[in-house]
């Protein structure tokens, strides 16, 4: 809980500072604070990691110091003449119907977070790499991922750094990191508020802010260790900053546009669809000649800032491996191929068919959101009722923004089709979760249309808005409550107030859960566990995590500086060198060949392995757990172990 207390204090003190020092509107100061704190988190983690000092105590001290600095700076800039009171503004931003929606929203978010907090981490990608990466960083005290066998170590890891920041403030436990996407919600909320205020006025500010954070896909992901909310929040924040920059011409907004653009680049490796976010700023450059000079003068320093905040992953890949998006092979017309290991088409490109049979079906998908044929919200889909209404009204909003000659609104709204085009051209695995930030754009456009209604009609419009918001919350919670993951948690929570991790994983991951429980009974802190298949790696470290886990399949590795072993002897040599004590062999149902080579190697050296158990399930396949007898023979590793492991 200290982690979230620190986060809250950093936000509030930074918000007061920006409001006092820059005389910003309430929601604009909040947006700047939210973005600024994200940047601080990144630099704190990277700074301590550079000295191998990624430790709970140092992070706590640094946060305390930073809060004091924020507070001091805020008091220094405090003026005798007070800005418009926060309470009055809040009353204006949340008229009765919207205030009701706010109550429902915060209740839904509270319930969602409570269940997630009490439940062991469950999300697929979170267990595969987001949390194992954070666990490894926090246990070794730096950001090395040496030997990590997977494309993630070459990607943007800014969101994992925020998870690590939370984990360190949580004393090294991963409970706060497991719901770490909460840290992106202030920026998401504030960006929605800023856009609502600029496009539709104060009466729709709170409405747009709430609409942004009650997208069902956001409510589902909020309790999962994914990174889509981070990416969505930063992209929406970039658009909000661009809109305010166009309207006010204040350079500070160009700076915050740059920061959010850089944060988005570093949050998730999806740079290919971020380019259209530059369009509103380019439009400002073209339409406001008086700003050109300052924009040109700051272009170079701001570009360097983008790289420092989140672009360095791409620069490093280009410098070291000749391809900014390594390991993905890229074909550039008239140039050739950039080197890599994976073709983008090898990604899960069938994902789109989980939701629509053909791309054209996306046109009416928002009115009935299905997943594998049945109506559902998941971590991949769910944009909610307000988006459906906004989707229908979007052409009208575009036309209205254009006719009003409202450049910042028009530029903002045109970003929607521009990003959609980039998404359909460049993204092989198309799921709404990759473009969460797009949903609030038509929603703000709808608010812009509705701002013209007055009197009883406005009440009726705000009532519909509140109904849409509350329904999104109720349907998201309802949908999650009927899932197996929630059923397995809610029952024990109701009866005993706690969820037993072993029982929970046995209920949700059948054979794998059995193996994790059996391993957890034996595991001592610092034991080394090897697995043959890197998916769902995290629980192999124990419940709670306390072991070191290596993904060592018996085959060649396509990645530089990772362990590869083709023969049984070589494979055994690597396991010995790493000091492996337990071995988990998973033969997943969906890949017939995975696990076969390792089982053969185990059969060739029966004296070295003791089988502790074997479990089979129709859903996850066969899982076997072995204990390895220590060997006197050691093999030379292809590269040394990282420090602390």
């Amino acid at each position, binding site marked *: 809980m200290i982690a979230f207390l620190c986060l809250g204090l950093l936000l509030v003190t930074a918000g007061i500072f920006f409001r006092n020092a820059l005389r910003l509107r309430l929601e604009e100061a909040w947006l700047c604070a939210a973005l600024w704190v994200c940047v601080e988190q990144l630099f704190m983690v990277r700074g301590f990691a550079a000295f191998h000092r990624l430790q709970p105590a140092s992070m706590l001290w640094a946060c305390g110091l930073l809060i004091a600095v924020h507070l001091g700076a805020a008091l220094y800039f405090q003026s005798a003449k007070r800005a418009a009171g926060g309470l009055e503004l809040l009353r204006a931003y949340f008229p009765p119907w919207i205030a009701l929606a706010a109550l429902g929203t915060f209740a839904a978010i509270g319930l969602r977070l409570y269940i997630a907090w009490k439940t062991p981490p469950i999300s697929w990608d979170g267990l595969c790499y987001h949390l194992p990466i954070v666990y490894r960083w926090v246990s070794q005290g730096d950001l090395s991922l040496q030997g990590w066998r997977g494309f993630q170590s070459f990607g943007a890891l800014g969101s994992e750094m925020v998870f690590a920041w939370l984990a360190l403030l949580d004393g090294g436990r991963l409970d706060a990191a497991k719901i770490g996407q909460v840290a992106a919600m202030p920026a998401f909320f504030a960006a929605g508020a800023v856009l609502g205020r600029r496009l539709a006025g104060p009466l729709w500010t709170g409405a747009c802010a709430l609409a942004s954070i009650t997208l069902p896909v956001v409510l589902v992901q909020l309790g999962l260790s994914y990174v889509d909310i981070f990416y969505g929040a930063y992209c929406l924040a970039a658009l909000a900053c661009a809109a305010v920059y166009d309207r006010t011409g204040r350079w500070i907004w160009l700076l915050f546009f740059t920061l959010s653009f850089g944060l988005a680049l570093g949050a998730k490796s999806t740079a290919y669809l971020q380019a259209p976010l530059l369009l509103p700023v380019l439009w400002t450059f073209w339409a406001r000649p008086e700003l050109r000079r300052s924009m040109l003068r700051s272009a170079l320093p701001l570009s360097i800032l983008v790289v420092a905040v989140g672009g360095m992953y791409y620069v490093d890949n280009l410098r070291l491996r000749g391809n900014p998006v390594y390991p993905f092979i890229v074909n550039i017309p008239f140039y050739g191929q950039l080197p890599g290991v994976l073709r983008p088409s090898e990604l899960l490109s069938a994902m789109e068919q989980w939701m629509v049979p053909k791309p054209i079906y996306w046109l009416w998908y928002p009115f009935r959101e299905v997943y594998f044929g049945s109506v559902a919200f998941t971590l991949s889909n769910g944009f909610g*009722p307000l988006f459906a209404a906004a989707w229908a009204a979007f052409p009208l909003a575009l036309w209205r923004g254009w006719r009003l000659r409202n450049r910042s609104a028009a530029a903002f709204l045109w970003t929607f089709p521009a990003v959609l085009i980039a998404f359909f051209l460049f993204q092989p695995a198309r799921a709404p979760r990759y473009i969460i930030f797009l949903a609030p754009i038509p929603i703000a456009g709808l608010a812009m249309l509705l701002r013209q209604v007055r009197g009883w009609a406005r009440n009726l419009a705000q009532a519909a808005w509140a*109904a849409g918001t509350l*329904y999104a919350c*109720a349907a998201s*919670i309802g949908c999650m409550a*009927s899932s197996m993951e929630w059923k397995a948690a809610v029952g024990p929570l109701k009866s005993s107030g706690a969820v037993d991790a072993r029982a929970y994983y046995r209920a949700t991951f059948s054979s794998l859960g059995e193996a994790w429980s059996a391993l957890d009974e034996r595991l001592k802190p610092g034991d080394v566990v090897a697995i043959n298949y890197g998916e769902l790696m995290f629980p192999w470290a124990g419940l709670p995590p306390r072991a070191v886990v290596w993904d060592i399949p018996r085959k060649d590795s396509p990645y530089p500086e990772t362990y590869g072993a083709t023969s049984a002897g070589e494979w055994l040599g690597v396991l010995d060198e790493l000091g492996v004590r337990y071995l988990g062999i998973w033969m997943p149902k969906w890949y017939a060949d995975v696990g076969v080579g390792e089982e053969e190697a185990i059969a060739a050296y029966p004296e070295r392995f003791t089988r502790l158990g074997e479990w089979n399930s129709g859903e996850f396949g066969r899982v076997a757990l072995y204990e390895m007898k220590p060997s006197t023979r050691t093999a030379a590793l292809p590269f040394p172990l990282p420090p602390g492991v």
Partner: protein
Amino acid sequence: MERFSLLLTLFLFWAVILLYFWFHRTLLNGWKELL
């Protein structure tokens, strides 16, 4: 004309919201598990 188009927008807004509720009504069933 302006007034008419505003009222039409408002009507359509409510209509889409209610239709959406109807299409997704099964999602509320999960509350039975929760309560």
